[in-house]
């Protein structure tokens, strides 16, 4: 009983005043969380990682987003400020916590449409479709960026970011070494025997094309990638280079160098394999940009040594 009453005393004092409930929650939230840098703009929460990176790229600090521990490890950039609240898993975000954060807008992608009824009880939902089976995602990501800018009154920033990304891609394409004219596999490793291949309708595949490179994985994909595929499928295009997107599973570092078939692949024998730093698989323009930069650095490195 004692501990119960003590806990009751620890409640935010705001509960004793009866004003409007929404205000109370917002007040409680501001007491606990640093306010976003620009108080004037809308307070946005992002369920989708692509939306999160786009927000950050436009200079908007979201109040909350999902799976930040993994985002910092797997998407890496843009850097997420410590003040952004982690809402938990993308598939089952913590609605109670989101309610306390009380954003003015929740940004999702079509992946999370099923969450809409719950999210709309908290704030209006802004949804964009970037990934559709069979459709190259880059133009859709551009459209999503502009739409988000429009929604948040950052049209100029959004336009600038879209243009900058296009210019950057063109620039990287121009400086790509001539030797990089080979087809390229972009894969991630699930274990030491299987990989996930990124196809035409993935962001990686689309950016490859924009860099003037040929995607060596011409086969079908299911939702932008094909997985799991046995490593022997890499032998289908003998003259291709292989780009492996990090991270590698724990045992792969030991077992891959011992893998006879892997070692027999022309790309491996001839040193045409590169390990890329982690990149968000289902990202928007910031991921596309990061990918373009890492790919051209890796291919430049290959021709040099």
């Amino acid at each position, binding site marked *: 009983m004692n501990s119960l009453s003590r806990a009751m005393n620890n409640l935010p004092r705001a*509960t004793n005043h009866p004003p409007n409930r929404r205000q109370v929650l917002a007040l409680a939230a501001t007491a606990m969380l640093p306010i976003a840098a620009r108080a004037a703009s809308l307070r946005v929460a992002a369920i989708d990682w692509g939306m999160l990176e786009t927000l950050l790229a436009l200079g908007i600090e979201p109040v909350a987003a999902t799976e930040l521990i993994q985002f910092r490890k797997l998407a890496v950039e843009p850097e997420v400020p410590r003040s952004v609240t982690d809402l938990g898993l993308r598939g089952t975000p913590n609605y109670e916590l989101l309610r306390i954060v009380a954003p003015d807008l929740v940004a999702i992608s079509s992946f999370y449409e099923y969450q809409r009824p*719950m999210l709309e009880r908290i704030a209006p939902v802004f949804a964009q479709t970037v990934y559709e089976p069979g459709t190259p995602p880059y133009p859709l990501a551009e459209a999503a960026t502009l739409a988000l800018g429009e929604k948040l009154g950052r049209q100029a920033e959004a336009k600038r970011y879209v243009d900058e990304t296009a210019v950057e891609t063109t620039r990287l394409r121009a400086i790509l070494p001539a030797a990089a004219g080979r087809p390229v596999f972009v894969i991630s490793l699930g274990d030491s025997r299987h990989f996930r291949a990124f196809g035409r309708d993935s962001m990686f595949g689309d950016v490859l094309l924009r860099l003037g490179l040929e995607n060596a994985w011409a086969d079908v994909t299911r939702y932008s990638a094909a997985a799991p595929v046995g490593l022997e499928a890499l032998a289908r295009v003998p003259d291709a280079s292989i780009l492996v997107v990090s991270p590698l599973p724990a*045992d792969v570092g030991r077992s891959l160098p011992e893998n006879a*078939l892997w070692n027999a692949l022309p790309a491996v024998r001839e040193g045409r394999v590169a390990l890329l730093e982690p990149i968000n698989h289902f990202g928007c323009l910031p991921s596309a940009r990061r990918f373009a930069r890492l790919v051209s650095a890796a291919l430049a490195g290959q021709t040099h040594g």
Partner: protein
Amino acid sequence: MADRAMTQRATTGHALSPIALWGLLGAVAALLFAWRVSMQSPTAPTSDGAGLDRVILLYSTLPRAAVAVLAGAVLGLSGLLLQRVLRNPLAEPSTLGISAGAQLAMTAASVYAPFLMERSQGPVAFAGGIAAVLLVLSLTWRRGLEPVSVVLAGMMVALTASSISAALILANGDYLFSLFIWGGGSLVQQDWGPAIALSTRLAVGAGAALLLLRPLTILGLDDASARSLGIARHTSRFLIIALAVWMATTVVAEVGVIGFVGLAAPALATLSGARTLRQKLLAAPLIGAILLWLTDGLVQLAAGAGGERIPTGAGTALLGGPVLLWLLRRLRLLEWPNLSTSGTSPRKSGRSIILLLFLMTLLAAVVALVVGRGPAGWSIAGGDILADLVAWRAPRIGVAAAAGAMLAAAGLVIQRITGNPLASPEVLGVGTGAGAGLTAVLALSATAGPGLQLVGSILGSLAVLIAMLIIAARAKFGSERLLLAGIAMSALCSAVITAAIAMGNTQSYVLLRWLSGSTSQATGFDAWLTLACLILLTLPLFLAARWLDILPLGEDTARGLGLPVAGGRLTLIVLAAILTALAAMFVGPLSFVGLIAPHLARLIGFTRARPHLAGAVLTGALLMIVSDWLSRMVAFPYELPVGLIASLLGGPYLVHLLAKGMPRHG
């Protein structure tokens, strides 16, 4: 003379027929393999591609076939040894928790001690497997390793271990997706390492089994004879178990969990006429090898350019499941006394205990409603904040309670109809059957709404339940046989779901969400709807309590007491199927509340149907409310699947109760 020769040939021909069958299946597997090789044989020897074709043939196609044959043989031998030593036809690496234990050890090692995984995957897997089996054996020691208890404890340990594996992966933020896609059981090879490792295991295992032929034969007898024949029972038992675990965990470490072969191969060996131990030692590994080789051939046949549709380890269930279901009637098993009436004395004060359970459930609901975590830490909500949070928390609590209660009621009905204390929606595959129904609906229409999805689930679980009972009704089915059929059916339905998830389309995400189970999207409407359904569906059960009391006594007794046996049974089955499918929509098929809740209620002391039902329903609701609350609290703000927490909570408790509570009988 000619006549005699004829009859002789006829008899030997008859005796040979199972061998012919297996020879035929082996030939099909070999043909598939030959087709595969011919596809890859170098056709244009000049180009660089031809050199690669040779490499693929040498380091991929050939070792893959070798691994299929070897892993199948190793699992068949391992299963046979375990079944023999434990005198338990259901014992095998999966049902004893060995595979799940090995997998947990490997998951834990790759999260917390990656260097261990880099250097010594095999020993890590063995440690996990042996720990699981030792746990199972020590828990059931006092019951004299009675087969049904051993398998129950084994399945609980397996379930708990795989729940912890899943929790570990999730707590590190990886998607469930990776868990299913890379879940293992794929036989893809790129060098000879695994094949060599497996062949040494097989050689050592077979050699040791032949050396231990005498003790093995004697251990197959009962304890008293073994003792009088002077075998150091426990030492040799333990050595053989360790050998079997070593073999099975090597398979887990090299290619992942491969279901079903360890169980099916020895059973099929017996069915095919292997009588003596020596025959079985030859037949079980052979049959295991043929099963896995054939399955792998078919899996590769079905594979497209975008990768295989289904890992071979799950595919074994698609092939072996129906085979075992079909042959099960012919399988001779030793039947053990039923657990159903053991160890409990009827309570006099049932009413007060039900009241206590009700109050506990209510208390849990209230606590779940007001106690929570926020950005500032733990808090007890009150006033306006509570009023606001109730809109979010109450539907989840309502749905969780209703789902738990429904599973408990379904479990109780199934246990009473079959007279089998281990039967439950989860064990008999009724829950995964709902998933198979859902898969079928989604395959027909990608945009099927919740109503249609529910209808599909109900039809799926109903089909499975009816199939199980038809199998059970034929040829005087004992409890082991029904459980075997249930394991086969469950594996079959899971394989269908896995295959659909591996397609990677929009429907896969629906199935994946269904499989992991979450109350997170529950609305107030859902809560009222499920609670209304609960009342609507369990009320008839309370009214039919007399049927539930009498049906376990057998058909003749029931008919003698004037019960409409067929009609009564059908009504109960339909109710149980609807209850299971509805509950699975919210908490997934894997919670095991349907098994645990009726058991707990029985262990508390409820024996008559009506109080037993009330006790089970309340226990189920209580378990699920607590699980749902914990799933939100444990890793805040990350929310874990509720079914996972429920099995983590209920599994160990049931195992504990089994170990200590129920006295030995028979």
